[in-house]
């Protein structure tokens, strides 16, 4: 189970937690005052009131120790930049996701060490355009992959000693066997980019390659289990 530290109480932070699978993640909520702490605690989250400007206080939350992911969701960009710099100096491996208010601050956050910048207004603008440009596709994906239906997109890494090693993508036949659609493969050996399977170039799977598949959760789980079972043999 991965541990996430959420800095900043807002609609955004609560929405993200709602979207994440509670079985896979545990959270610690860092708020600024008692009122916010009460509101968050009411929802059953571990809550702390600390000053993010103090490195010792950040360490006390678990950054540099057991925190895997950090959400910088303060409404002010300067606060998020300061928090990002502080956290990155404590943990190089930490995944830092920061929200941005002014688009000009995005580069500053990246320079400070954030892995992913989220501009809600930009995402909203793009989404609206997607809805206008491709209403059918966005409607299908919103209702299935990103919606309430049990259809998911997943990435599955080829483990060591897997029987899939040296298998050609055309020989996988996931559609018929596992009820999954293989969209592409990330070739870890060559370029770390996603290669779509319809491409003319046939790809041979290696350990560490990542398969990007689309399908129902149960079928994805079954496929993953089968790959893991191969390791046991």
């Amino acid at each position: 189970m991965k541990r996430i530290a959420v800095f900043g109480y807002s609609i955004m932070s609560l929405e993200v937690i709602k979207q994440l699978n509670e079985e896979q993640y545990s959270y610690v909520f860092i708020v600024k005052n008692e009122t916010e702490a009460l509101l968050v605690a009411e929802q059953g989250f571990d809550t702390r009131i600390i000053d993010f400007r103090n490195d010792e206080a950040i360490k006390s939350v678990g950054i540099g120790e057991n925190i895997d992911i950090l959400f910088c969701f303060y409404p002010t960009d300067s606060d998020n930049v300061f928090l990002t710099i502080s956290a990155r100096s404590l943990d190089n491996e930490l995944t830092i996701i920061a929200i941005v208010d002014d688009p000009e601050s995005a580069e500053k956050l990246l320079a400070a060490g954030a892995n992913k910048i989220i501009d809600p207004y930009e995402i909203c603008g793009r989404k609206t355009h997607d809805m206008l440009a491709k209403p059918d596709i966005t409607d299908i994906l919103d209702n299935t992959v990103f919606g309430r239906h049990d259809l998911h997109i997943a990435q599955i890494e080829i483990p060591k000693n897997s029987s899939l090693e040296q298998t050609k993508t055309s020989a996988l036949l996931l559609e018929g066997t596992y009820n999954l659609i293989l969209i592409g493969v990330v070739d870890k050996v060559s370029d770390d980019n996603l290669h779509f399977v319809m491409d003319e170039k046939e790809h041979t799977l290696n350990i560490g390659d990542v398969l990007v598949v689309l399908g129902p959760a149960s079928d994805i789980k079954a496929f993953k289990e089968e790959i893991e079972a191969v390791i046991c043999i």
Partner: protein
Amino acid sequence: MLTQLVFALVTFQQHSSTYKKTKRFFYHLLENSESRLKSRFDKAMIMSVLFSVFLFIDEVDTPASNFEKMFEHLLIALFILEYLLRAWLYNDVHHIILTHHAKSLYLNRPMQWGKVAKIIIAKKVEYMLTPLAIIDLLAILPSFRSLTLFRALLIFRLFKLFRYFKSLRLFAEIIETKRFELYTLTVFLGFLIFIGTVGIYLFEHAANGQEVRNLFDAVYWSIVTVTSVGYGDIAPQTTGGRLVAIGLILTGFGVLSFLISIIVSAVNDRMHELRESSIYAELKRYKSFVIICGFGRVGQHIAKQLEKHNQHFIIIDNNKINAINARRLGYLVIHADASKNEVLINAGIKQKASAVLCTTGDDVVNVYITLTSRYLNSSIRIISRANHPQNVKKLYQAGADNVIQPFEIAALVVAQYIGKPVAFEAILGVIREEKQFIMETLPVCSGSMIDGITIAELDFERRKLMLVGVVSANPTHRKHKNSYALKNQHFYFNPPPFFVLRTGDLLVVLGREIGIAYFREQLKNSRPKESKR
């Protein structure tokens, strides 16, 4: 007998579709400023008028050739025809007759033909006395070459251009709005010229009789001086004359400044309207466009995306700073309240607008704009922004087709990024066509090559395409598994090889753009001719 004939004619005009069509055609040709036909006609007329004026100028030195004479005759015939057609379009004579006839029947009294004729003539005379109709008539007169005086009226042919140049017409309209100020100025100017004329005549005629010979010379000198032109051909010699000159020059400056300020303020007053009318004219040129209500952060990003994909749009924002920002970026902007019916109607919600996007940061405003848009156009696509989750339902109730919550979507992106960044970026790239591969929908049309065949027969692998699923409302597909309910239909994910495609189904395919385009073309060509139409 004559009465019966008139009634037969009037009834024919009232009921004949051919008559109505003909009148409508000439209305679009001559009067409807939004018609393309009129735009073309105006351009042709501008060319013809200018050419005819050049011919007139040429005739000053050289005798007219046969071609020139023939052209002039044709143009005059066209002018006369245009004049008569405009008089015909000005009002409906048969309506006047039928209204009076109905009145006579109701009051049970004989038809008063004299009164009717008077009204009809009065209406037509009313048209003939309009400034543009007078110019039209005066433009015809120079062709009567026997009347030398009429040749001076050639200038009216140039005035006729007012009819065809929209900007000239607008300028005339602007001047019209300042009629009172201009009238006051004209009276004052007339008074000034009168004083100057009398003054210079009294002081200079006796002492400088060679230059100021008569009253006309005095009037001429006053006008030249008051307008600050000052040719210098007549110069005052006496002290009194020079004092009059000083007085006229100084007041002339004042009058000139006053005139300029009147015109500038008139143009300024109408600037907003002029800008908007140019925006509406621009919108009319587009086949379709999107209306963005609100140019805040979300609106700006949408505009950027639409601009990137060469899609036309118009921004409506009540906030002056937002409107200025949008204008600075070169976008079409209406600085107005988008919740007003008139604003949305003028923006084209009932005509060529394909979608309305309500993107303001205020849910109350978004609900109101959504409701107004739906009321004005029941079929237009409306996408609204909800800033608070509790307002999503209200926006759907107001008539939105889709509701977007910025923080919910951003949260989804974060959640997807944490678990499967590559997969999520891949699917986003496909939707946004940023990768080489795109996802498209292809319809199964009646009689096309894929209508009634199985997925296996289609052989997507050979076509280098991937079938993700099929969207269908056809109940025969219900037996298949992997079915996900959409609005009024189902999405069949990864359909089996024996899945038979039916008319109305929608294939969701993934592939290179070129491959999908080629397959789409094949499907189109395989359809029977009638369904293609």
